[in-house]
């Protein structure tokens, strides 16, 4: 059984609002559908990794990618159980544009009984090629891992 559209939207909003770290970073939900999610983090001075250039810290991109991958998994399995990350690999293709917000989109492209596989990309506001790509695996129904 899949979440219907309004359930999915509610779950997605909950995932963004209920996590204190996501709220502290200012994460925003852009869109969600079954197996896919898009989220965004606006730029602000406190999140800079380099105060001279104003480029956002890699750690903010890491957390956004982890979070949006989790959103894609939850929307794919239509269940709000515990889905811990097993691993997350991130390639940083190029630095983000200075003082740019970051948008990340994730696709849960394969579900097995116990594992979800996800790919994600992050973009700055200049568009074009991704600034970072990610690949992650999540545990499903992980009470007793």
């Amino acid at each position, binding site marked *: 059984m899949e979440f219907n559209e309004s359930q999915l939207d509610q779950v997605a909003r909950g995932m963004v609002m209920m996590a*204190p770290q996501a709220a502290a970073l200012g994460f925003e939900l852009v869109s969600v559908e079954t197996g896919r999610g898009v989220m965004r983090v606006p730029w602000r001075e*406190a999140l800079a990794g380099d105060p001279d250039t104003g480029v956002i810290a890699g750690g903010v991109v890491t957390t956004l990618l982890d979070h949006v991958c989790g959103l894609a998994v939850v929307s794919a399995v239509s269940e709000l159980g515990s889905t811990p990350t097993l691993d997350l690999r991130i390639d940083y293709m190029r630095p983000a544009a200075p003082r740019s917000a970051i948008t990340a989109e994730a696709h849960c492209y394969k579900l097995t009984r116990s594992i979800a596989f996800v790919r994600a990309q992050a973009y700055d506001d200049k568009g074009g090629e991704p600034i970072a790509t990610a690949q992650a695996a999540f545990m499903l129904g992980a009470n007793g891992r």
Partner: protein
Amino acid sequence: MSDAPERLARFISRVPYIAFLGMRAELAGDEMTAILPYSPHLIGNTKLPALHGGVLGAFMELTALAQLVVDEPGGRTPKTIDITIEYLRPGRPVTLYARADVRKVGRRVANVHVEAWQDLRAAPVAALRGHFLLSDGG
């Protein structure tokens, strides 16, 4: 090597996002320990509760960068090329520690392994492996 404490202090105090996390670092000789005191804003899952997986990854990436700043193989702050984060246990709402092991320094790229733990060094919470660009070459 002798000005390593100053370089480390400058790196830690210079990056706004390090202040956002609340990360610190201590140097004992050439061995650095990064410290992330617990704070409610670091939580990703309020039910468990557990630290956000992204926070674990970000903290370990910064630990690797800080260790490279201490070792100074390149003379400037390195850039992250890629990282793989392995999650081993939920990060509980207590202080997190990490140490970096610089496995290989080439002319342009360094390979670094990081491990993060809480109460028990022998029971790591997460690990990171990464490549870092030391210079763009000529």
